[in-house]
């Protein structure tokens, strides 16, 4: 089946993004298709390439990045949520005259259209928050 996962909360502050990550891995294990990961609101922090976890802690954004890269998943951080939270790709960084990007290369910044599209074209949508 085709699944889309919507993640609303930041890593380290709520269990939800960690649950979503384990859910995503299990989907892949079982041969399901992940149509899209959509990071919304504080969830965009899951795509941060700047997060540094403590030694005794899982680096959740790094794990998302590995999973997304390895399985070439479609991963979108909602643009209006992302930029106000400092999650920027090259285009947004340049547009706002900042000198760095903060989003992992495996995720892209996109609009709510991709949220609606995912709702229409996935068999199942699960939200984690």
């Amino acid at each position, binding site marked *: 089946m085709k699944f889309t996962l919507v993640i609303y909360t930041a890593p380290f502050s709520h269990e939800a993004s960690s649950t979503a990550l384990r859910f995503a891995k299990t989907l892949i294990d079982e041969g399901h298709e992940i149509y899209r990961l959509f990071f919304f*609101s504080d969830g965009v922090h899951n795509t941060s390439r700047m997060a540094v976890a403590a030694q005794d802690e899982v680096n959740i954004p790094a794990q998302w990045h590995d999973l997304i890269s390895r399985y070439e998943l479609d991963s979108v951080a909602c643009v209006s949520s992302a930029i106000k939270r400092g999650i920027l790709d090259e285009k947004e960084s340049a547009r706002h005259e900042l000198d760095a990007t903060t989003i992992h290369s495996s995720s892209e910044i996109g609009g709510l*259209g991709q949220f*609606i599209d995912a*709702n229409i074209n996935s068999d199942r949508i699960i939200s984690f928050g």
Partner: protein
Amino acid sequence: MKKQTFTFISRAAPYGSNRAQLCLDAAFAAAVFEQKVNYLFMGDGVYQLLADQDAEDIETKTLGRALETLDLYGIENVYALEADLKERNLSDKDLLARVEILGNDAAKSLIAKSDRVINL
């Protein structure tokens, strides 16, 4: 594009968190993409419907004003749960927009007829 029925359940009070705005943004997007949209206010979400909101002093957009534009986006099926209004001592005279007040059973059948339920 396939047309589906989306029901948005908005359960958060305005201003204290961004949840109410988030739910509204997602519903506007669904409407722009010409989906069928229901909007249901529930729990603390019914507080969003109060008239006379003015968030200028807390330096935020006044959410009530955005709700008044729901029908401009083609979102005409706007509902509020009766029990949750009553619990908060609110009646339809307090509300800014034309919303239909639903009992739980009517809300259940609304949900049952929806393809997607976004619950914030």
